[in-house]
């Protein structure tokens, strides 16, 4: 299937890059992957009959728009990245590492968006953290190491709490032994509400950390402003969407289980708090890029 191409291609590209170590291959692979990504996503976006659902992957109306956004941004980043890398005066080896991580980062985000299994989504969200850590640390300055440390540490703890939420969700499911989103939504009526509500708090906070919702947003302005511009664009325009997408999926389960008023209140509180924090900080900020990023990311609250 075509979607598998998007998940296998970056790994193949990394292996080829590792074997041949040519500097020209860096940009070549990024641009080829971006173009193929764009074509495949565009195909699913236009052709409704091609959308499908299987055990681990699915493409449907809910995620095709996220996939398309990722493709468009990645294509733009890939074009800009070529010039950025030519201007950056760094060792060839570091440029190669940067390319590995960029490819794996985009692959993991694609995986989060098309994944049909909550457990697998969790694994891939954590993979995005680990891959983008190097991108943030790319300039190797004191401030970038601080940003990378905060990013990896805060996000890993947040994601670990999201895993607690997933375990509690699997308590709520009772006899159903599956984390597949379709199974979960189909059987949501039978879930235990106490455990389901508890799990939603953990999942909202866990993936909310990754999405940069207040009050667990502290890594976000630092990491985004320290990352090289192409990586920064991917972080703010696509990574936050992927984390948001997982929250949205779990919210769908809450709706199916008729706990949605509770979930709405929780999401409203976090969203409002994020807007409030952004509004307060935006007056006191001394870093233009950070200011812009906070503001842009908070638009997601809506």
């Amino acid at each position, binding site marked *: 299937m075509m979607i598998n191409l998007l998940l296998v291609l970056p790994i193949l590209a990394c292996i080829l890059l590792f074997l041949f170590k040519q500097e020209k291959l860096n940009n070549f692979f990024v641009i080829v992957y971006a173009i193929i990504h764009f074509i495949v996503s565009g195909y699913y976006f236009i052709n409704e009959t091609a959308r499908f659902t299987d055990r*681990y992957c699915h493409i449907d109306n809910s995620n095709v728009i996220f996939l398309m956004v990722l493709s468009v941004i990645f294509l733009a980043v890939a074009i800009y990245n070529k010039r950025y890398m030519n201007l950056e005066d760094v060792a060839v080896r570091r440029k190669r590492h940067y390319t590995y991580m960029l490819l794996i980062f985009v692959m993991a985000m694609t995986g989060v968006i098309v994944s049909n*299994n909550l*457990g*697998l989504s*969790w*694994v*891939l969200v*954590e*993979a995005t*953290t*680990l891959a983008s*850590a190097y991108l943030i*640390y790319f300039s*190797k300055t*004191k*401030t970038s*190491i*601080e*940003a*990378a*440390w*905060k990013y*990896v*540490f805060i996000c*890993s*703890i947040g994601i*670990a709490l999201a*895993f*607690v939420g997933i*375990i509690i969700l*699997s*308590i709520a499911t*009772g006899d159903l*032994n599956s*984390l597949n989103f379709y199974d979960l939504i189909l059987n949501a009526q039978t879930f*235990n509400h*106490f*455990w389901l509500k508890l799990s939603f708090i953990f999942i909202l906070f866990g993936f909310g950390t990754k999405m940069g919702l207040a009050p667990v947003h502290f890594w976000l*302005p*630092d990491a985004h*402003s*320290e990352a090289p511009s192409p990586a920064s664009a991917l972080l703010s325009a696509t990574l936050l969407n992927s984390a948001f997408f997982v929250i949205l999926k779990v919210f769908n389960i809450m709706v199916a289980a008729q706990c949605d008023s509770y979930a709405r209140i929780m999401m409203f509180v976090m969203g409002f708090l994020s807007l409030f924090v952004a509004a307060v*900080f935006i007056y*006191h*900020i*001394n*870093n233009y890029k*950070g*200011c812009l990023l*906070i503001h842009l990311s908070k638009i997601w609250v809506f």
Partner: protein
Amino acid sequence: MENAFIILFGFTMLYVAATSRLAAHVNVLVLQGILLFLICVLGMNEFSVFNLLFIAFETLLIKSVIIPTFLGGLIKRTKEYRDTEANIHHFYSLFIATVILFAGFLVSSINMPAMKMINPLYFGVSIAVIIISLILITVKHKVVSNVIDFITMENGIFLLSLSVAKEMPMIVNLGVLLDLFIAVFILGLLVKHINTKFDDLEVSHLSDLRDCEYDD
């Protein structure tokens, strides 16, 4: 029998809260890995060689050999042997940890219908371990001890996943293991870089980045 090991697992957190030597913390990680292995094996419903091998690989090899060896090497290289300047005195962190562990035992003895769906002792102790680890992360002052507390939290989550009598799909289990392993590895590398750039491993150095200037 596994209940005794679970309680012992809870008590290891008290040791982490009370001591400041980082080498001792690493030894606790080894002990926790072995305890988790014993708890898994004793709690196994049906015996299969493949499961046993996977559990042994996950708990014994990764959690109690590879990660502690890596952290031990890191401590030797950075020459940071103690975490003495914690935000609060060790006595108080021991006290807080004890209270939380006690609350964990209380939770496991609550008698309500929802608790019938899980194994209560696993649940209470693992939640206590997770909360104690989170508190210790905020209290400790060295980045290495933060990494160690992060791993104890992951161990707590591992115990929590045992409280549900269901198995995650293999691909998820492997993914979780891989992610934890790589996260620890990356954090370890960052610790090394922090040590060379900032000369020591105090967390307080990592506060140069701030978005607004406070007038104080």
